[in-house]
């Protein structure tokens, strides 16, 4: 092996290793994000109780705004980073929880409930969002803890084989496609809903402006004045 071969090997290793390192970091970071998402969502009663004790409106507003921003941003980031579950190459080559795509679908459904209904005012909507998040987290953690992170356990070999994406590629790909179709459908519905809502509100505003313009354009008759 000459100098050029070694240089080429190191270059390839850095590219491949870097890409695998990035994926591994996302995979390692996802449980953190899932837990944070769940805790922030479930912690709402506590945040409300603390908010009520603020003597000034400003403090309460800052507290509530920070909570909302962090909670929803973490939810969105978790969904965005979970996109690795919909990359067939990664699903087949890396050890990922096999139910990951379904967990992501649940996460998107929770997001959809938040986008379509006022979760912070509507108890039923809040319960729906909670249900989706808890279901998604269960699907994610179950396969992660007892399959992907338990390869050293003989008692869990069967479960590990069945619930790890790169050891059960057929089922993993099937679940991935099911999850992806679900995500596309929900995202499509959100897209149409956003368009309809924009059309409705903007049309109302436009018609109001138009009628105002007409009123100013029409001259006031002398008899009326």
């Amino acid at each position, binding site marked *: *092996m000459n100098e050029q*071969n*070694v240089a*080429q*090997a*190191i270059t*390839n*290793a*850095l590219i*491949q*290793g*870097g890409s*695998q*390192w990035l994926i*591994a*970091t996302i995979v*390692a970071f996802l*449980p*953190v994000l899932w*837990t*944070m998402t*769940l*805790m922030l*969502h*479930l*912690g*709402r*009663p*506590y945040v*409300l*109780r*603390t908010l*009520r*004790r*603020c*003597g*000034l409106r*400003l*403090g309460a507003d*800052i*507290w509530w705004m*920070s909570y909302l921003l962090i909670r929803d941003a973490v939810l969105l980031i978790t969904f965005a980073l979970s996109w690795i579950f919909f990359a067939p190459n990664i699903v087949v080559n890396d050890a990922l929880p096999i139910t990951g795509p379904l967990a992501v679908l649940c996460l998107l459904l929770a997001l959809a409930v938040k986008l379509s209904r006022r*979760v*912070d005012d509507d*108890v*039923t909507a*809040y*319960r729906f969002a*909670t*249900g989706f998040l*808890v279901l998604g987290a269960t699907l994610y953690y179950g396969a992660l*803890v007892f399959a992907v*992170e*338990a*390869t*050293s*356990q003989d008692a*869990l070999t069967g479960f590990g084989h069945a619930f790890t994406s790169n050891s059960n590629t057929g089922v993993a790909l099937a679940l991935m496609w099911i999850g992806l179709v679900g995500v596309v459908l929900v995202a499509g519905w959100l897209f149409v809903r956003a368009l309809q809502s924009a059309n409705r509100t903007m049309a109302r505003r436009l018609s109001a402006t138009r009628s105002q313009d007409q009123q100013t354009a029409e001259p006031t008759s002398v008899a009326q004045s």
Partner: protein
Amino acid sequence: MTPDQLTQAIVSGIGAGGEQFLEGTLAATLPIIWLAILGLHLGRPYILDMIDRFTLRLGADLLWLIYVALRDLLIISGVIMSFMFFFPDVVVTDPLPLTGGLAAACLFGVLLIKLAGDPDHNLRAFQLTTLLLGLGALFYFVPYVLGVQANTVAAGALGTVSTFLVTNTNQTWAVGMGYVSIALLAILGAIAAGYTLRTGGRADASETQVSATKKEGASR
């Protein structure tokens, strides 16, 4: 050795080294997080004393909110960073405190009490929170100091105890403790989810009933 083999060896090195570096960093940061949590929780009287000295209500409100946010976010971070104690492969490979998972369950218990009770205004809830934090600190620091950080200097009986308290030198107990901690966390998590579903995200369950009655009245 061919260039392909060399590439593969470097890739494996980057992957394994990176993972161990990440876990090592988390393990090294956890004692700091634990100390900060304890410091902030036990420092409550000092903060309350300072709040009384404020001449402006805004400053007092901000100080209290920042204190509460810092204290509770640190507890959440502690639980999240303790997740490695629930992964059998990590527990078997890395030298971690044997009862770290139970410490994480105690931290989660604190969060549950904060969710369902009111430790800042209810004495019993505060006592329970303090007790759980103390218990969690014991579960974390005893095996950490006597086991993980003393396994090279401990000899004789202390050496045996030290070996027992570290996960990768006592794998059977470590995995068992991991499963017990997972079960505890699952039960506490289910209680938290049940509570939030019952209250519908409101501060109290009674508010949900009031809003439901109002809704019914409006629909009639």
